[in-house]
């Protein structure tokens, strides 16, 4: 997946030490001492140790960690608000960890925008002026700024509030302004430092959905910081779990929930809603189908017995016609119809979903007792989900 996309942000072995003698601390760290030992002997705090990651164009990369895990420090090193002690931070190939102030400013103006936890809107400016701040810094004229600000506000459906002041808006609205400010500058990379943490849970849900909605059309490269694993799982194409300044695990939502790297990650994933992480694709077994033109009731029964399945889909070419159940077939055979054809016992009203459909949406479909067809966009049968597998996946205990 990664290789085909352009890498927008690449961190190469980033370290950050807070304190007076960072080099000494770094040496001790390389010698294998722990964060606590180094703090005791040198008084330096290790903020981030050996963080490396790539973020491809259009991806949402979520960094999840508790407070003090170094996630906010990490995101600030991407746009140079904090300078790393060692390592490289490549933004479109430009190393912002080791460059002049001017280059850094240019990168900030043209490539990266940031959204803050407590919104960080300028209280003395109108909403429109806030949104257009990055454009003003770049030197755009007033009329153009206004136009772009209104466009960006339109994207977060706040166009009507252009001339209000931030303190006249609710928290959720303020953060939408913060988001609009990030969008207005046309930067391809968006850094979001716990943008929804200060919001009420309901509004947080809305904002997450709104972000995903926007992302579908904007295709920004987003680096999203959160302390909420659920949020990470909902938003992230890839997720990094951070602890004590280092990455514990980097992977997709499914990988993290299915194969937690250690007890720390496992403890997090223990009480998350698995039905919203896993998709139909993850529980589907390879498709086995009967062909309406060649298979008969007898061959169908034989196939089912061989495969150990209760039902099979019936196809004609790429099209799925329906599903036949073992029970129905054997019943019709018993009734003595020697020439029982598949068609007679075929159910044409069968459940059908896409690969990325989340498991919680399969609950209702699983109730029918029939296998759920997993199809590609053209409707071709890709795999089959047995009803019992849906619930089996949810019940998979956390690896102890």
């Amino acid at each position: 997946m990664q290789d085909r996309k352009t890498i927008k942000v690449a961190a190469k072995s980033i370290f950050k030490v807070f304190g007076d003698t960072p080099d000494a601390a770094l040496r001790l760290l390389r010698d294998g001492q722990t964060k606590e030992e180094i703090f005791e002997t040198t008084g330096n705090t290790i903020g981030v140790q050996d963080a490396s990651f790539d973020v491809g164009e259009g991806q949402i990369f979520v960094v999840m960690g508790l407070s003090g895990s170094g996630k906010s420090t990490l995101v600030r090193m991407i746009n140079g608000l904090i300078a790393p002690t060692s390592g490289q931070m490549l933004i479109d190939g430009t190393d912002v960890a080791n460059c002049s102030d001017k280059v850094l400013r240019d990168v900030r103006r043209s490539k990266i925008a940031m959204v803050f936890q407590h919104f960080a809107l300028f209280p003395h400016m109108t909403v429109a002026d806030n949104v257009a701040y990055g454009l003003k810094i770049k030197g755009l004229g007033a009329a153009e700024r206004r136009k772009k600000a209104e466009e960006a506000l339109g994207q977060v459906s706040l166009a009507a509030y252009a001339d209000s002041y931030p303190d006249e808006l609710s928290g959720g609205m303020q953060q939408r302004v913060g988001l609009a400010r990030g969008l207005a500058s046309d930067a391809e990379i968006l850094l979001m430092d716990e943008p929804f943490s200060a919001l009420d849970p309901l509004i947080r849900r809305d904002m997450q959905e709104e972000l995903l909605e926007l992302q579908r059309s904007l295709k920004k490269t987003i680096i999203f910081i959160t302390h909420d694993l659920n949020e990470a799982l909902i938003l992230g194409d890839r997720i990094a779990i951070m602890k004590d300044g280092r990455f514990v695990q980097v992977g997709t939502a499914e990988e993290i929930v299915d194969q937690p790297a250690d007890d720390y990650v496992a403890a997090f994933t223990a009480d998350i809603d698995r039905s919203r992480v896993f998709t139909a694709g993850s529980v589907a077994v390879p498709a086995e189908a009967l062909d309406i033109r060649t298979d008969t009731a007898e061959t169908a029964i034989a196939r089912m017995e061989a495969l150990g399945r209760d039902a099979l889909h019936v196809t004609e070419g790429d099209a799925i016609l329906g599903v036949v159940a073992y029970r129905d077939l054997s019943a019709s055979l018993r009734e003595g119809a020697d020439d029982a054809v598949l068609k007679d016992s075929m159910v044409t009203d069968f459940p059908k979903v896409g690969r990325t459909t989340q498991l919680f949406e399969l609950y209702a479909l699983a109730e029918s007792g029939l296998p759920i067809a997993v199809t590609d966009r053209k409707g071709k049968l890709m795999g089959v989900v047995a009803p019992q597998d849906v619930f089996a996946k949810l019940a998979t205990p956390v690896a102890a």
Partner: protein
Amino acid sequence: MFSPSDILTIPLADWVNTLVRDWLVPNFRPFFRSLQWPITQVLNALDGFLNAVPMLLFTAVLAFVAWRTAGRGVAIFTVIALAFIDMIGLWPETMTTLSMVVTAVLFCTVIGVPIGILAAGSDRFQAVLRPVLDIMQTIPSFVYLVPIVMLFGVGMVPGIIATIIFALPPIVRLTNLGIRNVREDLVEAAQSFGSTRWQMLRDVQFPLALRTIMAGLNQTLMLALSMVVITALIGAGGLGLTVFTGLGRLDVGGATAGGIGIVLLAIILDRITQSLGEPQRMKKTSLRATFANLFSGGRATRPTEA
């Protein structure tokens, strides 16, 4: 009884005398004199202007300013106070004092705000600056009146220089404080969009610190007013001189009149500058809207005060 002076006495007074009289004055007098030039220009222009403006016109303008910034009550007070000053026969003295104070505050602002901004940007500079400001605030002003007279002579301008020394610290301190207190994430936000230091100062730090800076200006102004009588000792005129003369002649009435003049002036200026520091947005009703309200006979639309 033994005391350290038995071993060593330090002729500090002699040293200072030598330093000031024999070195500073002969070598640097022209330099210090030249420092007076801008102050003299501003003071003369202001004094000439204020004394030329008719009393009624000045009262009307100041009352209008007071109304726009501090509200109706202060405006009414301004009219009554200025009329009273005129009636007790101290109008010219009041204008002279006002021009002195305004000149001193103007130079305090021009000097103090940039110093405060620099101090906010550098911890090291702040560390150096702090004891200097402490000394300026604690040293009794009589102590530096003597060298000021020796270096600058007597008159209005040396009085203003003494006033500047005394009144400068608050505006420096509060500019520094105001800029340092701008929320960290707002500074980060400005940085993250690629602001230069100057853009950040102009668009974010200064506007957000303005309230605190105005509080500093107010303090500076009050300190400047409190120097009015002291500067009369070295030849400055105005209300201070009235009080000082009263003191010399045991003329309690004259001193009281001068004192009341200073107090009234102080109250007016204090109220106006204090309200300048309040958030501007709620006062952003245009003048036209205000007049419209006035003539429609009601206070129907007052902007919501957040």
